[in-house]
C-alpha cells in the first residue's frame, strides 16, 4: 500500500476561501486554511500533544481517575440543578465578607457595571488577568473605548493584546505563535534589538508590566470556581499576575460566570485535583488564590473594595434546555488537547471565544445555532473529548443532538435534509443498507485504482479528499468478516472479539475509512 501524500491546498480552494471571506463566519474556509498551514499544525501539535500525554500520566496518580471524574461531574451537576439556591448562598456570604455582588443578565450589563465602578473611582488604568468571560463579553474593547488603559498581564494574553490577535487555546492563548514571531513583535513594541530567547522575552515583559502593577487603580480577574459556603472566588494561575491583581490595586473586580459555583470548600479540593492534571498535566498550579472581600482591618495590601460580577449572558437559557450538562465545563482545555480536529486546525478556525470540542458545542449555544451551524460538524465523533473531560461532559452525544437540531430547524440546505431522509430510510432496511454499502465499497475501490487510497471524490464528497487522501475500504466489509468469523468459532467469544480489534497496517486503516463513510 502506498503512503498518503501531503499536498498543497487545491487551487480551487483559493476561490472557495474568497467566497467564504464575504460571510461573517465560515468554519470551512478557516479550517481549510489552517489545515493547509504546516507550520501552524506543527506548532499546535508541539504544544498540545505533550500536554495530552502529561494529563494521562498524571491522572495515573489518582486511585481511580474515572470515579474521581464521575464525582466531579456529580458535584457540578448537583450545583447546576440547584443553582438558584447556591447563587443566593454565595451572594449572602460575599456580602458578609464585605464584598459587593452584581448580577449581569448579559454582556452589555456586565460591561456597564464595570465601567460604572471604574468611573466611581476615577480610574485611568486597569490591570487584567486572564478571564474567558471577559473575552466573551468583549470587556477590554469597551473599557478602552471609555478611555481607560487596559493592561493584559498574563504573558500570553499580553502578547495577544499587543499583536491585536485573538487567543487560540483556553489556557495557552498563543500556541499558534512561534518564538520568532513573539521576538519580532517585542522588538517592534519595545523598540529593542531582536532577541528570540524565551527567558529574555519573559523578563522583558516582566519589567514592563511591573510598573503597571504598581500604579493601577483597578484589578480585574476571572475565576475558576465560586464557593457558595464561604463566598470565595477560587482561581488558579502560574505566573503571579493574578496575585498582583488581588494585592496591589485599590479596587478589585472578579468577573465570573454563574455556572462556576460549587457548594463546599472541600469540593474545591476535588475540582483542583482534576483541573490542573487535566489542563497541563501538573498536580497543582503554582498559585491557587482564594479571595472574596476587601482587605481586613489593619492590612496594608489587598483591595479596599471588592466587587463580584456574576454573568448570566445566556447561561440560564442553556440551563433550561437539554444542554445543561455543558455548563459543568471548568475550561481546562483537555478536550482541545485530545481532539484530532483541534490539533489539525487550531483555535481560530472555530470562530468563537471557546475553541475545540467544547467550543463547537457551547459557541452555538451562546451565540446562536444559525450563525455557528457548522461547528457541531467540527468533530469526528471519536470520543477523545469525552474521555478527556474531567467533569464527564458527553460532548459527542450533544454534538449529535445539535446536528439533529440543525436538521429539525431547517438550518441546513434542502438537499442535505433529503439526503438524511434517504439515509435514514436506508438504515432502517438491512437489504437497502447492504446494497448501498456494497455499491459504495465497489465505487470507492474502483476510484482507488488498486493503490489503497482514494485521491479524488466527486462533488458532494469532494471535501473528504481536498486536503488528504482517503483510505479505500477493505475487500471484505465488517459485516462480512463478522459473519464468517461467527461461523468459524461459534463457541469461542475471544475469537470473535479478536476479529474486530483493529490490527496494525492494512485492515485497521481500511476499517477507519469505512466507519468514516458511515458517519458522514
Amino acid at each position, binding site marked *: 500500500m502506498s503512503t498518503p501524500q501531503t499536498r498543497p491546498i487545491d487551487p480551487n480552494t483559493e476561490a472557495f476561501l474568497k467566497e467564504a471571506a464575504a460571510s461573517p463566519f465560515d468554519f470551512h474556509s478557516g479550517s481549510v486554511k489552517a489545515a493547509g498551514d504546516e507550520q501552524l499544525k506543527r506548532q499546535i501539535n508541539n504544544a498540545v500533544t505533550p500536554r495530552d500525554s502529561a494529563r494521562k500520566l498524571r491522572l495515573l496518580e489518582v486511585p481511580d481517575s474515572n470515579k*474521581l471524574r464521575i464525582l466531579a461531574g456529580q458535584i457540578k451537576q448537583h450545583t447546576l440543578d440547584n443553582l438558584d439556591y447556591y447563587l443566593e448562598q454565595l451572594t449572602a456570604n460575599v456580602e458578609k465578607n464585605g464584598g459587593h455582588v452584581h448580577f449581569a443578565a448579559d454582556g452589555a450589563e456586565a460591561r456597564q457595571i464595570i465601567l460604572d465602578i471604574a468611573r466611581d473611582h476615577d480610574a485611568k488604568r486597569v490591570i487584567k488577568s486572564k478571564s474567558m468571560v471577559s473575552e466573551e463579553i468583549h470587556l477590554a474593547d469597551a473599557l478602552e473605548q471609555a478611555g481607560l488603559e487596559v493592561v493584559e498581564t498574563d504573558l500570553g494574553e499580553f502578547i495577544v493584546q499587543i499583536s491585536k490577535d485573538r487567543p487560540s487555546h483556553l489556557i*495557552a492563548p498563543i500556541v499558534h505563535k512561534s518564538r520568532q514571531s513573539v521576538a519580532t513583535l517585542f522588538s517592534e513594541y519595545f523598540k529593542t534589538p531582536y532577541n528570540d530567547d524565551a527567558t529574555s522575552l519573559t523578563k522583558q515583559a*516582566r519589567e514592563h508590566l511591573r510598573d503597571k502593577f504598581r500604579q493601577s487603580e483597578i484589578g480585574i480577574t476571572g475565576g475558576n470556581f465560586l464557593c457558595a459556603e464561604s463566598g470565595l472566588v477560587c482561581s488558579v494561575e502560574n505566573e503571579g499576575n493574578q496575585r498582583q491583581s488581588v494585592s496591589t490595586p485599590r479596587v478589585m473586580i472578579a468577573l465570573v460566570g454563574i455556572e462556576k459555583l460549587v457548594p463546599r470548600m472541600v469540593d474545591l479540593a476535588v475540582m483542583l485535583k482534576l483541573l490542573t492534571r487535566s489542563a497541563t498535566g501538573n498536580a497543582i498550579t503554582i498559585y491557587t488564590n482564594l479571595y472574596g472581600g476587601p482587605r*481586613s482591618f*489593619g492590612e496594608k495590601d489587598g483591595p479596599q473594595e471588592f466587587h463580584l460580577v456574576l454573568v448570566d449572558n445566556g447561561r440560564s437559557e442553556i440551563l433550561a434546555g437539554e444542554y445543561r450538562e455543558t455548563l459543568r465545563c471548568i475550561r481546562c482545555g483537555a478536550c482541545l488537547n485530545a481532539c484530532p480536529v483541534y490539533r489539525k486546525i487550531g483555535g481560530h478556525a472555530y470562530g468563537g471565544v471557546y475553541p475545540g470540542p467544547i467550543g463547537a458545542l457551547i459557541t452555538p449555544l451562546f451565540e446562536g445555532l444559525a450563525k455557528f451551524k457548522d461547528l457541531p460538524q467540527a468533530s469526528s465523533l471519536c470520543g477523545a473529548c469525552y474521555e478527556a473531560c474531567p467533569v464527564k461532559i458527553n460532548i459527542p452525544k450533544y454534538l449529535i443532538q445539535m446536528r439533529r437540531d440543525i436538521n429539525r430547524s431547517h438550518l441546513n440546505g434542502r438537499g442535505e435534509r433529503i439526503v438524511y431522509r434517504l439515509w435514514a430510510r436506508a438504515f432502517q432496511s438491512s437489504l437497502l443498507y447492504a446494497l448501498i454499502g456494497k455499491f459504495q465499497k465497489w465505487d470507492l475501490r474502483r476510484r482507488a485504482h488498486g493503490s489503497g487510497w482514494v485521491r479524488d471524490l466527486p462533488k458532494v464528497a469532494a471535501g473528504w479528499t481536498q486536503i488528504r487522501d482517503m483510505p479505500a475500504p477493505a475487500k471484505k466489509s465488517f459485516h462480512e468478516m463478522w459473519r464468517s468469523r461467527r461461523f468459524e468459532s461459534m463457541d469461542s467469544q475471544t475469537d470473535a472479539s479478536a476479529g474486530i480489534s483493529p490490527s496494525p497496517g492494512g485492515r485497521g486503516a481500511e476499517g477507519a475509512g469505512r466507519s468514516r463513510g458511515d458517519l458522514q
Partner: protein
Amino acid sequence: MNSSSRQTVLSRVRKALGRDGALRDKPIPPAIEEPIARLVYSDIGLPELFQKRAREIAMLVEQVRIDELLPRIVQFLREQKCQKVMLSSTRILTNLGAVHFLCDNGIAARTWRQMTADEAYDMDAGITEVDYAVAETGSLVIRHRPEHGRLISLVPFVHVAIVQPKDLLPDLIDLFERLAQEGTGSGVTIISGPSKTSDIEMTLVQGVHGPNVVKVFLLA
C-alpha cells in the same frame, strides 16, 4: 439596576430549573468518598513526603533545627545576593528576633509593620511563615492578614518560607476542611513553586510576575 438584575437572573435560573420559588430544603451535595478523592492518607512520613513533593515542583527545601534557622537564612540570602529583605510580622520570626539578627549580619531587613506596601516592590527577598503546608502537593498555604502582607511572598525575586511540622497536612482535602472550619481571613494563597510560564512555545521560564526562587526551611 443592580437589584433588579439580581431578580432577573435569579428568576431566570429558577424558571430554567422548573421552580416557582426558592427551595424549601437545603440541597444535599454528593458525598466526597475518601477512597476516590484522597491521595494521601497517613500522618506518618508527612515531612518526608512534603520535602519530596516540594522539590519536584522546583522549590528548594532544607530541614533545620530552630536554633540553626536564622544563621541558615543569612547564609542563603548572601548566596542569593539579597541586600534588602522584608519579613512578615509573625510569631516565630518575631520571637527569634529575626530582624535584629539579619541587620546585625549586614542585611537591610524590615518587618511588614515597619514599611509601606509599595516599598515591597524594591525588596530583594521576602521571608514568611506559612499557616499550613500540604504534603500531597508540596504546597505552602498563607492566610492574608495584617501581620502577613500579600506582597511579601509575591514581588521579590526570592521567597523564603518557614514551615513547622505541626502545620503539615496530608491532602488538599484536609486543607480545605481546615479552611472551612478555621476561616480564610480576607483570603488565602496556596503557593506551589516559583512563578512560571510556558506560554512561548512551551518553553518553561521561571520567575514571571512572582519569585523565581522559593526556599523552604522545614523545622525539625
